[in-house]
């Protein structure tokens, strides 16, 4: 009996997925690929819109929730469907404390699917995370 319910839930979920156009902007914290950090970002421009240069605050914490200071951050992005990158080279220009880093120079110049990869180096250890954005 239970597997019929499961079937129904899957069917409805599948239909809802069809109805969802594209990928939602990921706002919540995401685990880095190697599991070292949890990373989230907050855009200074909300909602994120094209052709406007703006700042992000990137928050980095360890997997157990302690804020990470002294991280070296690089941020690259692009549109996989168009084989081009961001129009800018954003940089982490300031540590704001509590695991927050100011990233200046964010800009998107086309609507569509973007990927932003944030690489983090702390005391020689690297890890990275990729966020998907649909503008």
């Amino acid at each position, binding site marked *: 009996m239970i597997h019929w319910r499961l079937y129904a839930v899957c069917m409805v979920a599948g*239909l809802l997925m069809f*109805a969802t156009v594209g990928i939602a902007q990921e706002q919540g914290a995401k685990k880095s690929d190697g599991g070292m950090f949890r990373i989230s970002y907050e855009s200074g421009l909300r909602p994120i819109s*094209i052709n406007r240069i703006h700042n992000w605050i990137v928050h980095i914490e360890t997997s157990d929730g302690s804020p990470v200071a002294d991280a070296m951050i690089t941020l690259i992005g692009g549109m996989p469907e168009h*084989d*081009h990158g*961001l129009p*800018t080279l954003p940089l982490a220009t300031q540590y704001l404390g509590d695991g927050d880093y100011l990233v200046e120079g964010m800009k998107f*110049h*086309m*609507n569509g699917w973007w990927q932003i990869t944030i690489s983090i180096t702390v005391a020689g250890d690297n890890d990275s995370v990729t966020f998907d954005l649909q503008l």
Partner: protein
Amino acid sequence: MQFPRKFGAILTTTILLAGVVFWFLRPPAPGAWTEAEFELLRSLWIGSLPPLPAGQSNAVADNPRAARFGQQLFFDTRLSANGEVACATCHQPERLFTDGLDVAQGVARGARHTMGLAGVAYSPWMFWDGRKDSVWSQALGPLESPIEHGGNRTQFVNLLASDDHYRTEYAALFGDLPKLPAQDPAIAEVFANMGKAIAAYERLLLPGESRFDRYVQLLLERDEQHMDSVLSVDEVAGLRLFIGEAQCINCHNGPLFTNNEFHNTAVLPAIGKLPSMGRVAAVREVRADPFNCLGHFSDDPHANCAELRFARTGDDLIGAHKTPSLRNVALTAPYMHAGQMNSLAEIIDQYDRAPPALIGHNEAKTLNLSRNERRQLETFLHTLSAPLATSPEWLVAP
């Protein structure tokens, strides 16, 4: 027999839900737009054009007296090596500030096609490769280019000093001219100020309301009855392709129909010419430019200059050129950075085929539009024509 009844119920629910989903995702009826399309149309509408960005590094950007002075400089052929070339030689008001030529003709034949100037002050980057980061800094480039005006800053400062009207205007805006003969940086300062006055003039050159804009205005007012009399069925079909299947809106976005950024779309160089490296070579140039936003001649030492500070270069910008505005595109042939294309049909064919690039890579993907769709797209581009929204007194030599 519980199984079939349950199965039946689930199947019915599934079909009903599929129906609901299909209803919401159904292709739009002719003339009707989905909510997403509606937002895209609004984003292209001239009414979405924000106020002009602050002049940041130009203290006289919004000074009417500077604009008048700039207009005089813009039309003055004395600012050249042979006394025959002014900004207006290539940026002709009667041709929407273009020249109708493949490449600019100054004191010699140039290498780049003349861009129109309507809405230029909205762009963070000037020239086809973006080697200048403000209108005032851009204006200085051609003045000293040996193939454009062919002049030099000392000559220009001497001209200002010898012309009573210019001397007075300059003094009123920027203070007295330096005692001549003088050297840089005093001469460069005057030269930069000339660019700032010209920029104050060029800020006034703004695009006007086209038939496309009237259509969107009526759409926003939900006035379906009159909408249909503004654009034909084919023009609407072309517009639908523009924001959809043909993907033109990817780069030609916003109310100026440009993102003012740089893309390689595999446009071949002019016959007999090497391909232009485009943006990839220009970033170094603009960073080193003494007249950039971070330079000594900027009027705001605290200006953020984010576009310049975070400008990026990279392999994907090899052969990338600036997206031109499409407003008045049907009236401003030829096209592309070296005027390589003469018709809109030729351009649409280029993007439809999306051939591999000679250098770098083509960002565009093959569209496979039908002949009729290509024709509709071209028809739509004609709806973007409109006189500039600039008072007539600015559109003639003073």
